[in-house]
């Protein structure tokens, strides 16, 4: 996108889209340089200043063991959003590749893959997440695995239907006639045409996966305790909700703001791709 096209898109953007852009820039800064924004340690415990309400020293207040909440919430940005981004990437890679191959080859491969996907889809996403992390145990690795599995069917379906539609187009027929192999046609010709669909799906699913990540953290099935994570901080704040509301307020607001920003961006992309 050239600078001029960017300026044009910005001038046409409505208030919600501008807000979403600002929020995304803010979150990018928090991800890249959390120490610059929140110089205090997110891990240092100090019982003498436990459960302090927001003040000039501790903007967001402190938690039950006296950790600075501003530092914890800011440092959690990279962890929470990173986990979701990584899990969805894994999901898109595996689910997208499977869908691409299944849609292109069809037949028994397609049928077998579709059955496997149906199994995951029998459960509502949050229940599938609870079952997987509950059985495998808490921890960042299992959380990523659970989120990746839960969203794999969506990537599978979108890549499959894309590959199915593309494989009937004339250019594939032409490539076949020219003697190109199946793998070469699939990855060099079909893939570039299906990729935008998968990328759009990634953006659309991101806020949903973020909600599930937070919910699992809130249930104690996410990242291990001292590590700052929005869902995990909310789980901790739950026990002090009526004495120290600030522990719960901020991580929730950050979750809301990041999900909102990505959701608006997804809608914008959808409209753009739909029109063009």
């Amino acid at each position, binding site marked *: 996108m050239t600078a001029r096209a960017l300026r044009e898109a910005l001038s046409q953007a409505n208030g919600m889209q501008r807000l979403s852009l600002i929020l995304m820039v803010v979150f990018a800064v928090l991800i890249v340089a959390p120490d610059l924004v929140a110089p205090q340690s997110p891990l240092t415990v100090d019982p003498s200043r436990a459960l302090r309400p927001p003040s000039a020293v501790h903007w967001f207040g402190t938690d039950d063991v006296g950790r600075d909440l501003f530092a914890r919430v800011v440092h959690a940005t990279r962890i929470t959003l990173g986990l979701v981004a990584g899990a969805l990437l894994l999901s898109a890679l595996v689910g997208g590749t499977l869908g691409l191959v299944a849609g292109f080859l069809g037949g028994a491969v397609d049928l077998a893959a579709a059955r496997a996907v149906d199994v995951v889809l029998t459960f509502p996403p949050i229940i599938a997440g*609870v079952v997987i992390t509950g059985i495998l145990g808490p921890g960042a690795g299992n959380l990523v695995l659970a989120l990746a599995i839960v969203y794999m069917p969506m990537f599978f379906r979108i890549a499959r239907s894309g590959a199915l539609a593309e494989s009937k187009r004339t250019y594939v027929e032409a490539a076949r006639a020219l003697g190109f192999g199946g793998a070469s046609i699939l990855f060099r010709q079909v893939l570039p045409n299906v990729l935008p669909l998968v990328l759009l799906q990634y953006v659309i699913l991101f806020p949903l996966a973020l909600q599930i990540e937070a919910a699992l953290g*809130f249930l104690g099935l996410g990242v291990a305790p001292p590590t700052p994570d929005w869902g995990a901080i909310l789980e901790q*704040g739950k026990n002090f909700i009526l004495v120290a509301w600030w522990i719960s307020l901020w991580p929730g607001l950050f979750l809301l703001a990041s999900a909102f920003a990505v959701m608006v961006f997804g809608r914008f992309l959808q409209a753009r791709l739909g029109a063009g």
Partner: protein
Amino acid sequence: MLRFLVARLTSALLAAALSSLVVFVLMRTVPGDIVAQMLGQAGDASAAAALRGFFGLDRPIHAQFVDWLAQVLQGDLGRSWYQGKRVSALIWEAFAVTFEVAAVTLVLATLIGVPLGVLAGIVEGTRLDAAIQTFNLVGLSAPVFWVGLMLLVGASAVFGWSPPFAFMPPSVDLADNIAIVILPVLSLAVLQAAAYSHFVRDCMVAELRRDYVRAAIAKGLSPAQIHFKHALRNILIPLVTFMGLILIQILGGTVVIESLFSLPGLGRLILSGIQGRDYPVVQGALLFVVAIAIVVNFVVDLLYGLIDPRLRP
């Protein structure tokens, strides 16, 4: 249509059986079973072996699964390893709670979400539309349990009131039951009303751009007639599909909300079953959730025929 329904039901049942198998194998291959939890780390080896024999955990997994499946097909979900109660009884008790919350939420979300969405669709592009869309996106972005937490804070700060934490069935004490259920329902309803309104708005906007609407305007029909007699009727099908989707979403969403408000519902049953490695409870409750999803989808398919005569068999 009938053939389509049968095919869908068959593939759904197949998926349910497969997902039971996956959960069954997964639970039994991951380290740490109920015996380890009962006896602790330094448990007596002979006692552990005896307990595993009692629960049938010493037999090959495939034999255990075949036994369980045979039992289920006879309508018996077994007994809880912890409480000794029938799993089916535990599920019904828990489902009564979850169903109450889900049903009230669905009604509330529909009553708020659909009119909002229709309104936003009609006034597309105006400030009112933008305001409703902002509500939708914020509602969709807010974590359900966080809304619940903030409602707790708000109720306590404004009214000096907080809900009782022991569940009371509506048949025993309706006032107490409402006091317990109101916050969980409100937190779920905000999200689902936003989802509903978001979806309905987009449907309405797309519908009002169709040719028949232009023809109706040209014919001189009043806006009310166009909006409610024509457009709304035509978006009923996606609306009903979405209602099914939302109902399943609410059932899932209750897992978190039940844990927050200490409601003894289906989600809590599954969660505590998993944490206690109470395999029959987990297996039975998950099968029940899958069955509900199948039934909801089936009913949605049947409703299509009622709404649109062209889809009748």
